[in-house]
Each structure stands twice: as structure tokens, then as C-alpha cells.
């Protein structure tokens, strides 16, 4: 008789030959994109800032009705006299520094917690302020809710601090309406911090704080501070992938979903007073309840700093 049973391999080595492992280097960060977008946003905010400064110096509203919508993003006006661009420097620098402070707050805390993140991407856009803001991308999981909380709140705190300081000085240089100021198509609403800062300056009798906030020309740098405050509020809305959504998830993971829905409902209601909230509500709904990868069960106070 012959033995028909095949020999049993003595180890898995015979079945699975060793694989050749090659170390793949992670893709190199493409910093040129960050700097290209930074440069473009610098140009668009300079453009808008030039018109704001010109209007301010000539006692015109920030966004005069006579200019119409094209006047809000005055490319033609700059092409006629390119040197006008220099007028936009105060607004441009103030706004860029505020936005950069916000993003670097996130970025530096990512570094602190050993989370991989990109440098800020600025978004140039033909809007009232020449940009749609900036963002960073988180490229690795966040190890704890404590880290998520700190990374989420660091940006708004940093942006708010710089915007408040900017506002303090800018309100000093704002000035009262004149009789021939003309109509405007954009009337700003002011957040509470504007009234507090105005009140504070008024108490010390400083600069233009003697006049009412709603009857004064805001200096373009104050408009940059206003944009910074708006960006802070928008990011702190408690829902979705906004900074506020991350903070809520870090503090109360199970409340994140319904709080996001509540925020969307609140934005729909608020659109009665400003239609833009409806757009933000839709964007928040579309972005869903996703958030950066983070273990739900990690305690919020777990120390994770490396």
C-alpha cells in the first residue's frame, strides 16, 4: 500500500512565504497649496479693504447703495488705479491675523496632542469681506475627548482674543455719520461684545465712543473685527462638524446628534431675521453629524498630552 496522505506542513512558513515589506513614506505635505490660497485670499481681502478704506475716508457708508452689488467687490475700480490696493492693507492685515489666530489655535493644540493636521487653508471668495474664512484638516485620529475639546475650543478663543483687541483700537478711530453720507445696502447687526467694548471706551471717554454705535462709520479694521466675531459665533454653533459640534461631542457625546438637529431648527427660525442662517442650516444638515474620529468612551478628562 502506498501512503496517499500528503505531508503535513510543519509550519505556516511553508504555506505563506514571507512577504517583502517596504516602508512607504507618507505623502509630503503640499505646502504650496496653503501658500497659494493664502496669497489669493490676501489679494481678495486687500481688494475689498481698499474700497472700505476709501469709503471710510470719504465719509461714505462701508457698502454704499449707489455702487450696487458690483461695488461690493470692486475689481474694475482697482484696475483703473492699482495703487488703490494699498488702501486695503489695514483691513486685510487685521482680518487675516484674526483668521490665522483662530486656525493656529486649532493647529497648535493638534501639535500639542500629537494629532496630525494640515496648515490652514484660506478660502478666497468674492464676498463682502473677500473670503469665506479658513480651515485646517485633521489627518489622524484624536485619542480622547479631552483632546477633541481642547482642539475645538482653542481656535475660537484665539480668534476671539485677537478680534477683541483689534476691535478695541478700531472703535477709537470710527467716526459719526455725516448728513450727506448717503444710503447703504448693508446695515450691520452688532454682537454683544461690540456694545460692551463701546461702553467700556465710553466710560473712559476714548475716541469715537462718545457717539452711538449704530450712528457711526465703522473703521475698516472694526469691520474686520466684526467678521472675526461672526466667524467665532458661526464656529461655536453647537452642531455637526463645527467647532461647537466638536465641543458638544467631547463634553456630551450622546447629546451631539439631537443638539445638532436643534441647532439646525434654530437656524431655520433665525432665518426670519437673516436669510443667510437658512443656508448655514442647510450646510449643517448636509455635513451630517460626523466628527473627527475619537473614542466615545474615553473620559473627557483623560490626560493625553504626549
Amino acid at each position: 500500500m502506498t501512503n496517499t496522505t500528503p505531508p503535513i506542513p510543519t509550519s505556516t512558513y511553508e504555506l505563506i512565504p514571507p512577504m517583502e515589506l517596504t516602508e512607504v513614506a507618507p505623502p509630503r505635505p503640499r505646502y504650496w497649496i496653503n501658500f497659494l490660497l493664502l496669497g489669493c485670499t490676501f489679494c481678495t481681502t486687500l481688494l475689498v479693504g481698499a474700497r472700505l478704506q476709501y469709503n471710510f475716508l470719504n465719509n461714505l457708508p462701508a457698502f454704499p447703495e449707489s455702487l450696487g452689488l458690483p461695488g461690493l467687490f470692486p475689481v474694475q475700480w482697482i484696475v483703473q488705479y492699482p495703487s488703490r490696493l494699498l488702501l486695503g492693507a489695514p483691513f486685510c492685515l487685521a482680518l487675516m491675523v484674526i483668521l490665522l489666530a483662530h486656525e493656529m489655535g486649532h493647529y497648535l493644540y493638534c501639535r500639542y496632542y500629537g494629532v496630525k493636521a494640515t496648515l490652514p487653508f484660506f478660502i478666497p471668495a468674492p464676498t463682502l469681506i473677500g473670503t469665506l474664512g479658513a480651515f485646517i484638516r485633521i489627518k489622524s485620529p484624536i485619542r480622547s475627548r479631552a483632546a477633541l475639546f481642547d482642539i475645538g475650543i482653542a481656535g475660537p478663543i484665539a480668534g476671539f482674543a485677537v478680534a477683541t483687541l483689534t476691535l478695541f483700537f478700531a472703535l477709537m478711530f470710527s467716526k459719526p455719520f455725516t448728513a450727506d453720507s448717503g444710503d447703504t445696502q448693508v446695515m450691520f447687526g452688532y454682537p454683544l461684545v461690540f456694545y460692551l467694548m463701546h461702553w467700556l471706551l465710553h466710560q473712559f471717554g476714548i475716541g469715537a465712543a462718545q457717539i452711538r454705535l449704530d450712528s457711526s462709520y465703522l473703521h475698516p479694521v472694526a469691520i474686520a473685527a466684526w467678521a472675526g466675531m461672526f466667524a467665532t459665533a458661526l464656529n461655536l454653533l453647537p452642531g455637526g462638524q463645527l467647532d461647537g459640534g466638536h465641543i458638544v461631542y467631547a463634553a456630551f457625546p450622546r447629546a451631539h446628534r439631537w443638539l445638532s438637529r436643534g441647532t439646525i431648527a434654530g437656524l431655520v427660525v433665525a432665518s426670519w431675521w437673516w436669510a443667510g442662517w437658512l443656508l448655514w442650516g442647510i450646510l449643517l444638515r448636509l455635513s451630517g453629524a460626523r466628527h473627527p474620529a475619537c473614542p466615545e468612551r474615553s473620559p473627557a478628562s483623560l490626560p493625553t498630552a504626549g
Partner: protein
Amino acid sequence: MLFVAVLLLALTFMVAPVQGWGIRGYAESIFGS
């Protein structure tokens, strides 16, 4: 720190960042105030 987040939101939030650009304004222009 959660308190700080709520405080910042309260200090910076505007119901109408740009006045008169709400659905209310459009409704009033169509139906009257």
C-alpha cells in the same frame, strides 16, 4: 471650559448679522408690514 464656549457664543452671536436681509424683510416687501 464649557462655560467659556457658551460665553463666547453669547458675546459674538448676532441674530441678524446684516439687517433687513431676512425672510421677514422679503415677506414684508411682498405682503406689507
